[in-house]
């Protein structure tokens, strides 16, 4: 019995605004508890919400970047339920008239590009934070996060595997970061993901019973949890057991999904239109204006790298993964028009150094100027590529002029023909047997002499020009 998985993802992304969605409190992570709070986001009696214009702008940009239709009129609604981190006893969100609908993201699969449709995007407010681990008898609440602007992005159940889910989330995150809407920091909770999972017989059009898996806040956990849950569904179906429609949490230690304990009856949220806010009206002109704020997206950039800069698709893909890296690459190319060499250096060496030092490119001391200067020296033949790669690692600690470092470390390639010829003649005189082999017509012995020269010069030769010299000397010897 072959089964296929049917997955839909609900992603909540915090918007990169300076202030919260309905009040002027700062939107910042990590502040001292309860210091970014006002009557509105604390839910004091008499407080009223006022919408942040920039939150709307960012939400519209996100919707456009995700190919959605942005609606000229959308409305806010109250979602009513009791929970300690929800100060008003209701969340202001959007219900039957969301900001945008009918979009999509493309992901790369083995069988080509696959479109994952997006059902809707809407604005809502975040809740406060419960801290459960401070004491066994009490929970503690910090309302700094209450009122932070969110967009909720709901996909259609077009995703068919944990890997596809991961790709979808990666692409979505990348796009949101690219257009400056969200900082994508999953550890800090700026991007959160829940999944709806069901399973059905391969080829069937019916939907199986769906369960929800919550708080999948890393790519690794996302894939593992989904694989786990899909397996659980299949196991239940194969043994003719019923799948309960419930909410599951992923236990990363035991690597299983477990039902959430507190799910008693399903909530009746009693949605009704928010009377304290008026309908959100966006003219076509305003929507267009927000669209202009969007920069080139990853897929477009990759296409340009491949077609115009002649990079390999694989290399281009790596570069566009992170907007900062892509920007850095483009900066280097502007300074030194050698896209392939630069790409290669970044991919093979720079990324490795960043990873091992656990810093981002914006925190790195090796600027585009220094990198391109280094690469230029290899083009000029003053140092070999291998030497450049060695020097590169030094640049993270050593801020001196590149030429100084080259000289001091003795990396400079010996270009002095006289010196080279002298060394070559010395080597030839030490190896008469090999010379004889060469004279007899053994061309491969050239390699031996090159090796000896390399040893003698401690690698400080430019192989191509040195080879010509060695050959000439051998011919004349």
């Amino acid at each position: 019995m072959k089964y296929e998985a049917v997955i839909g993802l609900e992603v909540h992304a915090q918007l990169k605004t300076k202030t919260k969605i309905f009040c002027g409190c700062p939107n910042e992570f990590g502040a001292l508890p309860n210091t970014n709070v006002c009557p509105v986001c604390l839910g004091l009696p008499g407080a009223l919400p006022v919408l942040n214009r920039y939150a709307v702008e960012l939400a519209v940009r996100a919707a456009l970047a995700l190919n959605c239709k942005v609606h000229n009129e959308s409305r806010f609604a109250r979602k009513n339920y009791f929970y300690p981190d929800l100060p008003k006893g209701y969340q202001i969100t959007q219900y039957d008239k969301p900001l945008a609908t009918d979009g999509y993201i493309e992901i790369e699969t083995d069988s080509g590009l696959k479109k994952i449709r997006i059902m809707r995007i809407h604005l809502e407010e975040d809740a406060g934070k419960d801290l459960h681990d401070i004491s066994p008898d009490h929970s503690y609440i910090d309302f700094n996060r209450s009122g932070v602007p969110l967009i909720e992005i709901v996909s259609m159940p077009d995703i068919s595997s944990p890997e596809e889910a991961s790709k979808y989330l990666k692409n979505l995150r990348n796009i949101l970061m690219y257009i400056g809407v969200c900082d994508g920091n999953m550890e800090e909770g700026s991007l959160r993901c829940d999944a709806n999972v069901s399973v059905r017989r391969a080829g069937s059009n019916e939907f199986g019973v769906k369960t929800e898996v919550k708080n999948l806040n890393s790519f690794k956990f996302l894939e593992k949890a989904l694989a786990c849950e899909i397996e659980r569904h299949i196991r239940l179906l194969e043994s003719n057991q019923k799948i309960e429609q419930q909410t599951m949490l992923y236990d990363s230690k035991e690597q299983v999904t477990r039902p959430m304990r507190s799910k008693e009856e399903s909530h009746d949220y009693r949605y009704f239109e928010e009377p304290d806010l008026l309908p959100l009206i966006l003219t076509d002109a305003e929507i267009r204006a927000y669209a202009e704020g969007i920069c080139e997206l990853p897929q477009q950039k990759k296409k340009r790298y491949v077609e115009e800069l002649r990079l390999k698709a694989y290399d281009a893909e790596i570069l566009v993964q992170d907007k900062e890296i892509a920007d850095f690459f483009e900066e280097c190319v502007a300074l030194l028009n050698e896209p392939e060499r630069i790409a290669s250096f970044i991919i093979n060496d720079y990324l490795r150094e960043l990873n091992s030092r656990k810093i981002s490119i914006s925190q790195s001391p090796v600027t585009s100027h220094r990198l391109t200067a280094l690469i230029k020296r290899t083009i000029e033949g003053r140092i070999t590529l291998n030497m450049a790669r060695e020097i590169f690692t030094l640049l993270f600690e050593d801020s001196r002029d590149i030429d100084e470092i080259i000289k001091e470390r003795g990396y400079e390639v010996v270009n002095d023909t006289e010196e080279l010829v002298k060394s070559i003649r010395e080597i030839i005189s030490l190896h008469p047997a090999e010379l004889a082999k060469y004279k007899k017509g053994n061309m491969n012995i050239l390699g031996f002499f090159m090796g000896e020269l390399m040893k003698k010069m401690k690698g400080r030769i430019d192989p191509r020009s040195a080879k010509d010299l060695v050959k000439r000397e051998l011919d004349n010897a």
Partner: protein
Amino acid sequence: MDISKLGIFEIKNLLLKRKICCVELTKLYLERAHKLNPILNAFITIADESAILDARRSDENIQKNIDSIRPLEGVPIAIKDIFVTQNLRTTCGSKILANFIPPYDATVVKRLKDSGAVIFGKLNMDEFAMGSSNENSYFGPVKNPFSPDRTPGGSSGGSAAAVAAGLTPASIGTDTGGSIRQPAAFCGIIGMKPSYGRVSRYGMIAFASSLDQAGPMCRSVRDCAILLESIAGNDPKDSTTMTTPVPHYSEWLAGDPSDIRLGVLKEGYYEGINPEVLKAYLRVVELFAKHNVPIVEIELPHIKYAVAVYYIIATSEASSNLARYDGVRYGHRSEDYRNLKDMYKKTRMEGFGDEVKRRILLGTFALSSGYYDAFFRKASQVRRLIANDFYRAFSKVTTILMPVTPDVAFRLGERVSDPLSMYLSDIFTIPVNLAGLPSISMPAGLNRDNLPIGVQFIGKPFDEHSLLNVAAFYERESSCMEILSRVSL
């Protein structure tokens, strides 16, 4: 000095002419409040200390020079305990907020303070503005100054009683389904509910968000205009306030009847109301007719559904607005609970009175799954029909005249066990809130038991200035405010 008959306009005169200083005047009001509160129970909080400080500041301003004198400089005023006042206890008439000290001021409060007013007390009210008799207050009922065994009306009962009895020259109340106009009618004073969106609701503890509105309660139409001027206008903290400019309402008191076209309902509509109320209302119609004001019959075909519509919409919004009272961040928290859910339930059970619980449950029901369409949505549709009826009527008339209540002030304890009959007494005030219109309630004489009767003038949205003109005309021609000379406390 006898302060018991003073209004804002007279006080301004006294202060500017230095007949009395602000501190002295405030002290007189504070003394009077302390003396008479045991009888009327109009005050929940009397703010002796902060009032004297504010009064002192006003005295300094008056000493300095004419330029620094603000429109309400040194005028003592007590307001309904529904407006949050920074560092001054605000209870909303409820146990659940009995010790709540707000860290911020309502916009209405801020504007009064910025105009120089001296806020010296918070007035009693029905809990969370839910009630028509001020018998639903955790702090006990308020007595009607015209007759102590009668209710003053509600929910702004404390405000109405205090103004009528001269414990405060004027007050600011709130009106969701009649809560300014009905107590004003029961207590023989003037009460105005402005258009929805005219006055900020920021800091006004919410009952029904799409209906609540703050307004002046006074002894003269001029005082009404002065107060409305200082509190009206767009507030960036309240998305539902309009940017329509605020006219100089004090300039609209000529009382010129020439452009008035008065709309009235068929008399048959008032079948069953107290005959004395009907008689008083008809006398008012006659007064306007005598001055050649055209009296035009209008129809409001859906008005009979107004109470049902109101009690669905208002309670639904209230059930959501009152969810924040959960004992987590402020207010009463039960001392005896086993877990979080228990804490919520016990806190709310202990903290809320019966009427509040009743309305929360009714509202929760009307929004709940399976009932939302038949109740909340349907009511909202009928609401539009009621509003449209009014807009249609206003194409033929400038002002509509109606009674305020079907009866005069009832006895304390008379209606508490029958909530539906209590709701039905709001039948003339509720439609106005549903349509968001401005309305002003004016005294129209006494019944044979010397209990006040009121009538209301209803205007088009944001037409408060025309309404004040009509009211000024009526006040002058009827001498209706003489009724307050009957109160001697």
